[in-house]
């Protein structure tokens, strides 16, 4: 049985089953007759960003990102529908390492069958758990595109994955949802060559450093080696969520047996203490390396199993919307400041309120707290990490002009991200935006790490 399940979970077979199901339905002539319900829509946007300051000689002062998405959605019958979308994402930045390839790829591709008591969806899809905005501890099903950190919103960062999802509705108030993810997919991050990359322009800095040529060669030849879980049944992910309404409270309870989507890194190059790099910079850090102890200059990206239990709540109190989430995660790995990997359980919760006034002023405030148990000094994280996320906006001229401010403020290390923006929606289907991305904080803080990425941007979107 176990062997059979392992076979079923092989990538090709799973995808074949998916396309076979579509094909079988294609030959249902009755279903074809109602194919006129096919809808095509999508969007295209382009965003130009320029740095507000030249912080160092390696910086990407300009960046251009475009995305085109085409969606086809249809109903073959009242109880069967499908969605397929194609995506083309292109990032250009002024750097010799820039990868200027346009990467057209299948984004979402799934079909859903609806029955009186349950829905079943199979294919490449995005599943959103949780009630809070942007900071959502319970929402861990899909990996994210972190190539520009958190500059894109949470929903925009989500990457669809192959999944089977079954929703059972015992009555109008309750829903039981089960998901099964056969293949692991990790977060998308850049390691080198960009302002947003984890090691940003380290390689270019090494090239121009005063290090001996042999050391330079060693460092420049280092690469990232991924140790992803292999495709077998043992490495699949699954989850269960029960959601319902009690009086005016929408609540949910969830469990997810998953892999951390963000890798933890290990390398012989990580020596001494992170504070040396954070306080003195790369050159000092490199000069303190013990070159004799570097047997393997590569960086190994490791992924670990985690168990996540979640609770969600949403309601309204008078004129305020109130929502919250709590997640207890067992087995999270962190990188300590001495570059060792340690395993910790964490408790992460968010409480938020939002308010919309009669003249369309909108305020959304969320307080978050993450507690790391059995704490030892960890890079970017303290024992207790308090944060504040907020969004304020004002609709002017019936939504034609919307000034907005979004912020993340890490109360524990005093770093922050500010995103003031003006949205212009003068003509239907056209959205113009201009704004600033401002990061501030010490280099050993999460937001401060992107201190060199302060930008002004211009964005144009057309929906069709």
């Amino acid at each position: 049985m176990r062997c059979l399940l392992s076979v079923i979970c092989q990538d090709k077979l799973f995808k074949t089953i998916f396309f076979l199901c579509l094909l079988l339905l294609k030959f249902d002539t009755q279903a074809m007759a109602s194919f006129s319900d096919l809808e095509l829509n999508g969007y295209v946007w382009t965003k130009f960003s320029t740095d507000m300051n030249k912080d160092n000689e390696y910086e990407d002062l300009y960046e251009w990102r475009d995305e085109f998405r085409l969606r086809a959605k249809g109903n073959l019958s009242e109880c069967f529908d499908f969605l397929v979308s194609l995506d083309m994402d292109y990032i250009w930045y002024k750097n010799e390492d820039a990868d200027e390839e346009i990467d057209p790829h299948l984004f979402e591709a799934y079909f859903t069958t609806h029955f009186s008591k349950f829905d079943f969806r199979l294919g490449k899809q995005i599943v959103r758990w949780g009630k809070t905005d942007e900071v959502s501890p319970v929402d861990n099903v899909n990996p994210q595109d972190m190539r520009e950190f958190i500059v894109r919103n949470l929903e925009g960062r989500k990457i669809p994955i192959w999944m089977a999802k079954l929703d059972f509705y015992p009555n109008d108030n309750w829903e039981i949802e089960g998901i099964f993810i056969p293949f692991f997919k990790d977060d998308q991050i850049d390691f080198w060559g960009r302002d947003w990359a984890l090691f940003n322009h380290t390689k270019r800095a090494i090239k121009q450093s005063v290090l001996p040529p042999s050391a330079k060669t060693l460092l420049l030849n280092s690469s990232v080696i991924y140790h992803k879980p292999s495709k077998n049944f043992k490495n699949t992910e699954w989850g269960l969520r029960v959601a319902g309404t009690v009086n005016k409270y929408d609540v949910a309870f969830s469990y997810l047996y998953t892999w951390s989507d963000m890798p933890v890194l290990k390398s012989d190059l990580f020596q001494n203490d992170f504070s040396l790099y954070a306080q003195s910079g790369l050159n000092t850090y490199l000069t303190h390396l013990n070159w004799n102890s570097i047997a393997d200059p590569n960086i190994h990206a490791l992924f670990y199993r985690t168990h996540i239990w979640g609770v969600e709540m949403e309601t309204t109190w008078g004129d305020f919307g109130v929502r919250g989430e709590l997640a207890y995660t067992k087995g999270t790995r962190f990188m300590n400041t001495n570059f060792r990997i340690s395993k910790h359980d964490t408790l992460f919760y968010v409480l938020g309120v939002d308010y919309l006034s009669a003249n369309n002023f909108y305020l959304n405030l969320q307080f978050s707290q993450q507690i790391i148990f059995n704490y030892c000094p960890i890079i970017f994280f303290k024992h207790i990490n308090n944060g504040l996320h907020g969004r304020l906006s004002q609709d002017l001229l019936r939504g034609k002009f919307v000034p907005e401010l979004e912020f993340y403020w890490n109360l524990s290390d005093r770093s922050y991200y500010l995103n003031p923006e003006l949205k212009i929606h003068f003509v239907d289907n056209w959205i113009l935006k201009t704004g600033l991305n401002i990061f501030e904080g010490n280099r050993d803080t999460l937001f401060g790490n992107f201190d060199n990425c302060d930008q002004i941007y211009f964005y144009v979107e057309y929906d069709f």
Partner: protein
Amino acid sequence: MKGRLIFPIVCLLFFVSYSWAITGLEIAQKVYSRNDGRDFYVQMQMTLIDKHGQQRIRTMVMAEKDYGSLRKVFIRFLSPADIKDTTFLAWENKDREDDQFLYLPALRRVRRIVSSKKDNSFVNSDFTYEDMERRKPQKDVHTLLREERYQGWDCWVLQSIPKKNSHSQYGKIISWIVKGIYIPVRMDLYNRKGELIKQFLVHKLKCIQGIWTATDTEMINLKEHHRTRLVVKDIKYNLGLSDEMFTKRYMSR
């Protein structure tokens, strides 16, 4: 579409002075309890027109089902593309605050929203949420002012003033109610300072499946010189709509 549909505002207006045998309150009660089917499904076009004549067009479907003490309303936008599939669901409860939910495709989840802000604009139109709901006649003092012919219709002209303990964004509403049909074809809406701020007009009335329906209406914001026109493209009554349509599950389909 029928008055209740587009502006259940309609149901606000009624009064206490009388002419002949009928009182304002009785007229108001008849408007409120007028037969408008057990349910309906309507496709309509909303056009927002600013003072320069610039138009923004939204198309949507709306379904409503009456459960006696509970009324459920489902609205889904079909266009323009940037708000397509945005879905609104309201459960209007008799004895407690309404439940309202919003599904934004970009968020991929249904969100419970505050229902107490009745004076907020509905999707940047000139209609507020209060205009969209049925208001019980008992909440206002209704006075029959006169009878007159308006746009070819024999009408009662009624004044409705909210009672002290009932909340409303309006200070007074004057309505022209068509006799025998019990649909207002014009409403003048005043703020609490007594200023005329909005005007609601019915341009077309049709009898569909035996139910009188306002199929072309307009709300004019006199202060901002902005108008919202609602035109019914297709409406069907008493379809026996399934309960499933009025659930959170259905919103994201």
